[in-house]
């Protein structure tokens, strides 16, 4: 079902100015034209103005693909009075004005069960995130390496060579839940969370890796930092990550970190 095609776009920097450093490479295609299994789902009320659509309880690539295509179908249907949909691993929550939308469950079923709204092919971006893994930005690299019985350099190599997928964006603005962390790199959370994690910090917690988009308290082990602003409400595309994106981390040195940071600040 999954076919990956990468194109280098050397001209991207010139042709897509605001996407500089965001979308240097395209693109990954997922082909849905192969027949998908008929989506089995359950709908239940989540409060009085939200429906929860559940595609099972197994967090697998197939379930996530079902959630994603359902999200796209509902988004494209653009139902009057329907505000937003929150995709997650196996569920999709659809938020609406209950007094404006009559029979929301029937509407959702008619969208999801219609073969005409099923996307036949989706295009995704492979997003390359530059990450500086140098000690100053990586206070927990040594402890992650010790936990994995690897050298810090091997941790960086493994972390930056794996292919990740944005399962969904949630929790806080611009935070992507990434799947695909190499199993050796799994590491427990810090025994006591930091009171402030700087924005852009790349961390590991359990079998998850992610990037803190804004300064928050946090208990993830920090192994690097990206100069990108993962979320900027004033940008045409506020969130660097969105559901279905492919992600790779590209190790960069201190000099490149600062130069990218200057470019971004210069534009803001």
């Amino acid at each position, binding site marked *: 079902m999954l076919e990956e095609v990468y194109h280098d776009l050397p001209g991207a920097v010139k042709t897509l100015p605001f996407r500089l450093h965001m979308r240097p490479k395209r693109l990954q295609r997922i082909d849905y034209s192969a027949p998908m299994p008929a989506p089995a789902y359950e709908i*239940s*009320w*989540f*409060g*009085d*103005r*939200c429906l*929860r659509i559940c595609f099972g*309880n197994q*967090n697998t690539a197939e379930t996530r693909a079902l959630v994603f295509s359902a*999200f796209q179908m509902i*988004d494209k249907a653009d139902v009057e009075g329907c*505000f*937003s*949909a*929150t*995709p*997650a*691993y*196996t*569920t*999709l*929550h659809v*938020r609406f004005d*209950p*007094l404006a939308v009559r029979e929301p469950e029937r509407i959702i079923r008619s969208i999801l069960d219609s073969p005409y709204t099923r996307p036949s092919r989706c295009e995704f971006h492979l997003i390359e995130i530059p990450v500086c893994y140098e000690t100053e930005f990586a206070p927990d690299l040594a402890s992650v390496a010790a936990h994995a019985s690897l050298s810090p350099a091997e941790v960086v190599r493994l972390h930056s060579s794996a292919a990740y997928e944005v399962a*969904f*964006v*949630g*929790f*806080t*603005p*611009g*935070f992507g*839940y990434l799947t695909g962390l190499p199993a050796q790199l799994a590491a427990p959370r810090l025994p006591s969370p930091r009171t402030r994690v700087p924005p852009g910090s790349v961390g590991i917690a359990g079998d998850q890796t992610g990037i803190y*988009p*804004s300064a*928050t308290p946090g208990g993830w082990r920090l192994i690097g930092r990206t100069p990108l602003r993962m*979320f*900027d*409400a*004033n940008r045409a595309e*506020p*969130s660097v990550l*969105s*559901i279905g994106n492919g992600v790779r981390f590209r190790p960069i040195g201190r000099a490149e970190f600062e130069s990218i940071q200057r470019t971004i600040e210069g534009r803001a």
Partner: protein
Amino acid sequence: MHSISILEPGMLTTVQSLGSPLFAEMGVPEGGAADRLSLIVGNRVLGNWDHAPALEFTLIGATVRFDSPSTIAITGGEAHIQLEGASTRPLQSWNPHRVGAGDIVRIGPITRGCRAYLCVAGGIAVPETLFGASTNLRAGFGGHHGRALRAGDTLEMNRAEPRPAIRVMDADRFAPHVLDRRTLRAIELPLANRFDPDGADRFWRTEFAVSNQSDRAGIRLEGEAIPTLCAGRMLSEGMTPGAIQIPENGQPIILGVDHPTTGGYPVLACVASVDLPILGQLRPRDKVRFEPVSVSDAHRLLRAQRQRLRQFPRQQVPIR
């Protein structure tokens, strides 16, 4: 300059509007006024749009100076409000008042409820971010530079259309609903494999106290622990304001307007839309209980509340 200056910011003062539920898939919560009912009433008293941006005070009001004449209304939590200027007198909340250039308005500690709103004719002028004017403190966007107001800040006000502000004889009839109601109506979710009937039963019977660890993102409750069947953990999924999560320690968390858009704690019930504004007025140590309501009853209650709001501008007399 048609502006308002912050002399003392109070405990936590932000610019808030009605929030926008459009960007959940980017992790952006709905946001906006924690008690949207009080904001809407304040704006209607002044003849504003419902979503005109206003100042939201938390527990302690601010002291502000008007640099030009305006009409204002203060709604929500009860506080002593003092006007200092050409005439010095206390102001009544839920009603419109004219203020002159150089007038100072002092809003004291909030003694009933938790949040008050200062609405100005025309609304506070802030740039629109993600189709809204509301401040998101965690991500640092919206409102006034994405942050809480500080002493010395100056905010522009929109020029109001020259329409008479209205004295509403009983605008404060909405006050008891948001300020005094301590039974929150909520819709129970299917228990599935997350709760057993005894745990759910205990939840509906228990009187909880609001913890002081509560903010716009969520209200933490303290009381008898509610057991879960999944050790307070499940796969992360979508959340909405009003969702009542039960984490490992069994102490419920009601999500607020700035909630995390996804979460991994099991949800037992969701507060009905009609009672969501009350969440913005719960203060530490308040006692709350929950009352189950069906989805169709919740819709009926919400419809009645909106009808009451619609009838509201009819009962008005212009003020001098």
